[in-house]
């Protein structure tokens, strides 16, 4: 019979019963902690500086004129961003209407139906992630060439919304897939074992359980779209619009474009106006992100 001694199991410590001693000072640990903290502070300080700067600079024009008036080239003291605010709301609402259903349904297919052992499904998966990294100006060119010219939609709100939908679609799909994948398989099995069909299982179990994750990801994706100026520059968002959009084919402008236009002006008043408009844009973004966080916390499921 083999005893522990034969196979050489390590023996216990020699100094059994020695005193443990006080906490030792470890400089490396402190240094490392300091580096971590410094990295965090850099980001926060920059953001805070930006916020304080734009608020201070735009303070003089952060009043009702900003959202009650339209743009005015000759009289900056009366200029406002109402057309841009409404344009942003229109474009965002349409973008959401287009990209959410398409993105969620695509994600359901990829997670629940696609056979992942097949190469083409893996290829789609990989390329989807690449798509999310394509620069937005490329989507602008695509929208201009195909939607505006080929399909004859022109430089209108609907062209902008479809283009932005394509831009954020990969992000919506990826976020939705994550949320769907987070639903444990035991739920799928439990539902199917009761004689539910696949679609019933998806509709009554998977989707309700993954809605919080899908909503959070989608809102964050939309808040990326809201700040986009590059593709819309190509898609004919005009800088001087003195009316609100009233149909899908209206001419329009959006906040980032309006801000870009004002910044370019030489007169000081327009610079201030741009800062005020940036505050509005940031406020909308903050509101959307807060909504995302609220939804996540409110409906988070624990299995």
């Amino acid at each position, binding site marked *: 019979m083999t005893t522990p001694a034969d196979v050489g199991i390590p023996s216990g410590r020699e100094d059994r019963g020695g005193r443990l001693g006080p906490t030792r000072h470890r400089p490396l640990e402190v240094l490392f902690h300091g580096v971590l903290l410094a990295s965090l502070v850099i980001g926060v300080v920059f953001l805070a500086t930006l916020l304080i700067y734009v608020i201070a600079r735009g303070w003089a024009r952060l009043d009702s004129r900003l959202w009650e008036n339209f743009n005015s080239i000759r009289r900056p003291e009366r200029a406002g961003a109402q057309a841009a605010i409404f344009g942003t709301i229109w474009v965002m609402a349409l973008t959401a209407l287009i990209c959410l259903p398409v993105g969620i349904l695509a994600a359901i297919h990829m997670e629940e139906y696609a056979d992942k052992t097949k190469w083409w499904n893996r290829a789609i998966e990989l390329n989807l992630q690449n798509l999310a990294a394509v620069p937005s100006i490329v989507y602008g060119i695509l929208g201009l060439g195909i939607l505006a010219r080929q399909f004859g939609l022109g430089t209108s709100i609907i062209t902008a919304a479809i283009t932005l939908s394509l831009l954020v679609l990969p992000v919506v799909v990826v976020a939705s897939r994550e949320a769907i994948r987070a639903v444990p398989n*035991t739920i799928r*099995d*439990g539902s199917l*074992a*009761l004689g539910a069909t696949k679609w*019933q299982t998806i509709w009554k179990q998977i989707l309700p*359980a993954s809605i919080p994750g899908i909503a959070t990801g989608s809102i964050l994706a939309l808040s990326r779209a809201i700040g986009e100026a590059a593709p819309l520059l190509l898609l004919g968002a005009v800088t001087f619009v003195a009316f609100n959009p009233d149909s899908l084919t209206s001419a329009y402008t959006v906040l980032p474009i309006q801000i870009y236009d004002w910044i370019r002006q030489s007169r000081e008043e327009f610079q201030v106006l741009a800062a005020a408009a940036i505050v509005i844009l940031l406020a909308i973004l903050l509101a959307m992100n807060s909504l995302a966080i609220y939804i996540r916390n409110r409906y988070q499921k*624990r299995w």
Partner: protein
Amino acid sequence: MAHPRHTYTVGEMSEPKQTAEAEDRRGEVHLGNFERSRSVSDTAAVFTVEDLSVFYGDYEAVRNTTLTVRENQITAMIGPSGCGKSTVLRCFNRMNDLIPGARVAGKVLYHDEDLYGPDIDAVEVRRRIGMVFQKPNPFPKSIYDNVAYGPRVNKMKGSLDDMVEEALVGAALWEEVKDKLKANALSLSGGQQQRLCIARTIAVKPDVILMDEPCSALDPIATAKIEDLMHDLAEKYTIVIVTHNMQQAARVSDRTAFFTAEVDRKGVRHGRLIEFDLTSTIFGKPNDRRTEDYITGRFG
């Protein structure tokens, strides 16, 4: 001991204390069942498994299994990990279909109908053959909605409230939850959750209930309750249970199938049915040396 089914010595276990404890618990909890014992007769066959092999891709997980599951009896499948007992169980309601690359060879007859026949609808199969899983898996909904889910998706006629109550009574859970049917199912204890899953299963009025190690995540008291429940359920349903726990198989089942994993010449493990017989025979005087080694605790 009042009934032979409960008198087998389950192995000369190396730890006599544990055995004694298990023995005590058995006597205590199952006293009520002794008088109600059913004689093990040859009722009609529900599943006739002929030469069944299950493959995952190229890997043959289980080979050449032949056994018969009979009506209103509890059939236990025991054996060490990786012996294919759960795989065979999941063939009975075609849950293996959900695993990409899984396929079966051989035959599984359900009341003389080929379960894997070309015109058999797997959804309909699962409606008739319910399943309770290893880990309690209630839906993140209310207790009521959990039980009502099956009748709803199957568009069953009749009062939903009545069906829910009946199922909860049947699963011995009604008294504990009747005042909080709207509470989230995840707020229940593990044992209650598992009985809820049983209620959910019987709510669709199945013919057979498959149980895949239903007690392995539960404490002994919750386990005892489920075992009691199984005895009651066997009066109405046919039950097939996979268990790691030999005492459990000995306590609850009428027939036992012993599986083990065999390594072939290429070094690949395959699950295999070694012996299938009355539980009293398997635990009393098994025919196969390997069965005896397993139940006496010499291996596995």
